[in-house]
């Protein structure tokens, strides 16, 4: 149900601009320029990296099944599909699910798994300590997470922590539906009791294996959203989430430009109002793009232009503005190239920028 809904949503938004594997790479969280850029170009950020264990073969199997079920149809181009009427109805009901509301890939990508592992081990540890049991087989076999929990324990001697952890968890889970909370708690491990495997959960909650994964992912994002939004209510649980990157510095003058942009003034108008050169305003906009990841660059450089610039950067394997400009069609400006670069270097981890 969920996986199909997500793929349909992807197809719909990609609107034949990419093959079916464009969605695969987004779900898988491929660390490449193209995938990150696609995710933001086509507004599929919420799905980025939500299914990192999905294999290509299995994805192909899901697609064939969707075809068989009449949700999608092969288009004339290889590996391209269109959505049928049945598919659109399916998509509509997917949009009504809570998981669709919860899921928030690009923001939580990587942090969500770490959050879960820490939480599982933390609960198992305090559950055991509460019964004075110091030796148990940890459900999470990951040294980094174990070290983190050990460190946490050193700072939080057990006397009151259990009660507080329970209270926070209880409060937190109330933001879910009954079924979701039930599912999540069934996964938890404690004293002489081990939580359910994903396969067991799938059987119990009548989900496919894929949907069980996405169900859990969605719930996790919802929980993290709650915690991040009200840190003061979750003094323990908020420690499980690694900090966001430090917000970057923005100059006062760029901030003024930003304010005017939000009031829908054009670049030329802003330059006139502030008695500055247009080029200076361009610099401000680059600064804003770097500072605020939610700032949309679409109105300065269209999706088509972004695609062109990106493919040239990839082909030339260079960030040199002049070279890139020489290969672009003439109408593309230095400003537009810089804007794409600003975004791209932000979104991509160091090692993936050149593939």
């Amino acid at each position, binding site marked *: 149900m969920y996986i199909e809904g997500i793929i349909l949503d992807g197809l719909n938004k990609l609107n034949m601009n990419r093959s079916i594997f464009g969605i695969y790479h987004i779900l898988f969280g491929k660390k490449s320029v193209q995938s990150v850029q696609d995710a933001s170009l086509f507004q599929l950020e919420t799905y980025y990296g939500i299914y990192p*264990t999905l294999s290509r073969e299995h994805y192909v199997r899901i697609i064939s099944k969707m075809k068989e079920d009449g949700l999608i149809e092969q288009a004339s181009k290889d590996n391209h599909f269109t959505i049928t009427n049945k598919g659109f109805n399916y998509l509509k009901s997917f949009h009504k699910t809570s998981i669709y509301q919860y899921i928030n890939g690009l923001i939580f990508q990587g942090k969500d798994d770490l959050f879960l592992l820490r939480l*599982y081990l933390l*609960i198992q540890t*305090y*559950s055991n300590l*509460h*019964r004075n049991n*110091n*030796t148990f*087989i*940890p*459900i*999470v*076999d*990951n*040294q*980094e997470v174990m070290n983190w929990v050990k460190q946490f324990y050193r700072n939080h001697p057990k006397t009151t922590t*259990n*009660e507080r*952890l*329970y209270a926070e*968890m*209880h409060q937190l*889970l109330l933001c879910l539906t*009954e079924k979701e*909370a*039930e599912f*999540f*708690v*069934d996964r*938890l*491990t*404690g*004293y*002489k*009791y*081990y*939580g*359910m*495997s*994903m*396969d*067991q959960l799938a*059987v119990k909650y009548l989900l496919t294996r894929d949907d069980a994964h996405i169900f859990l992912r969605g719930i996790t994002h919802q929980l993290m959203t709650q915690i991040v939004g009200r840190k003061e209510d979750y003094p323990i649980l908020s420690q499980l989430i690694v900090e966001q990157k430090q917000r970057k510095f923005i100059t006062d003058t760029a901030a003024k430009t930003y304010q005017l942009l939000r009031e829908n003034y054009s670049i030329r108008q802003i330059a006139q109002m502030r008695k500055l050169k247009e080029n200076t305003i361009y610099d401000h906009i680059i600064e804003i793009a770097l500072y605020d990841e939610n700032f949309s660059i679409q109105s300065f450089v269209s999706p088509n232009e972004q695609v062109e610039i990106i493919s040239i950067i990839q082909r030339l394997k260079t960030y040199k503005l002049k070279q890139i400009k020489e290969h672009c069609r003439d109408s593309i400006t230095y400003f537009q190239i810089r804007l794409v670069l600003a975004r791209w270097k932000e979104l991509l981890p160091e090692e993936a920028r050149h593939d």
Partner: protein
Amino acid sequence: MIKTGTLENQLEFYFGYKTFRTGQKEIISRVLQGKDVLGILPTGTGKSICYQLPARLQKGLTIVVSPLISLMMDQVKELRATNFKEVVALNSFLDFNQRKRIYRSLHQYKLLYVSPEILQQKELQHYLAKQHISLFVVDEAHCISQWGHEFRPDYQKLNQVIQLLGHPPILALSATATKDVQQDIIDSLKRPEMEKLIYPMDRSNIALSIQEVSNNEEKLERITSILSKYQVPTLIYFSSKLAAENVSIFLAERLPNHRIAFYHGGMEQMDRIAIQQQFMNNQIDVICCTSAFGMGINKNNIRLVFHYHFPSQIESYIQEIGRAGRDGEQSISILLYNRQDEFLPRQLMDSELPSDEDLSRVYRIIGQSIASKKAFPTDLTEFPLFFEISETQWRFIQAQLEKHGLILENSLQYEQSKLTKIFQLIRTIRDERLFFKQRKLHEMINWIQSESCLREALYTKFQEGYTSVDDQCCSICGINLQNFQPEEIQPHKVLASWEMKLRQLLVVGEQHETK
């Protein structure tokens, strides 16, 4: 601390056991005399004590080479819980700095667990060579032998490390090793004088049953009908992951009161731990699994072991049924045999070893790469793809190449004629192994079809005699299921809501615990 006193005193002092189990005392006293020992003790009888006690009593460091990381970790945890703190495990989970720290403080430890792969590291060897090594233990020693059922190429390099460490006394331990394998172990470790201490592996509390069926439906019928009479800890072995999954789902529908799950090597780590531990905690009754399940599992009340598919070697079979009845209580092993099943292991064998075609392709690619100075993959995991073969096939070829000192790296210089020779040798070895595996399979099938006492036929291959069993011996001598009345599992109460479950996890005290 007591330094004197009988061995029994020391056993009790350090481990809290009053008496030794069969074989332990003999092995330990030889070890303490500095002799080299090959000990064959059936699974579950307590091989670990054979080096843990000497480690505590002797000066210097005891090194234990063990193939299973999870097993190492468990043992370290258990030992630390008994207040033996000078023990540590080195494995690939540790990061660089953690390892470094351990290397520098080796003198503080008395017992060191290592994986054979890590032991090959030059840096570790450098630090170990400075230590006084009181005992070098090779656990699961059958992994040394190519003819063993769990061959590990790195085990064959142990001898070089032993030399480097100044020839400490050796203790090699295994639960299943035929006479050939025993000889291989002694040869590979280069200790011809090694003393063999071999203890019987037959388990008189496990009844052996073989039931011939004509199709899979019949297998399912038999399993369902037996399980519906007994709700006891049960293992069902399969040779394929998919079959294990499917049957598990089928049985769960047919037996709604049983708690049934599956387990195989394709599952994620956390789910594997969860299922294993649920079984240990009696949260599950029945596990449908592949041979990946069971190593290092220490559950003593498994009552039924089914083989939905039979294994391709008698050694594996003995090990798998040996997981039943560790507590000595009556247990039953049931092998469901369908003549058509013989194809499965044959197919598996063929896919595990490289074919002639595979070999000539790899040979050609290596030759070309050397001649044209083309690069080999730098990432080891890319080799199978590079040669278009499977991982197991590549592991076999790689081990053979390494044996001949050929390591594939860039700007490798190698004469074509030598390469040709190596590949001729590899082909011969491949044929030998294939032949060997076929012989093993044959042996298994012959045993399944034997018309005299199954117990006698099974165990006399490995040892001189066996304990005869009057009552529940085997399906040839006769088994009476009416007399099989094992203690049933009392399932835990299932809590109604997530809120109660969460309370139970975090805040409810001992007195409210459900049983």
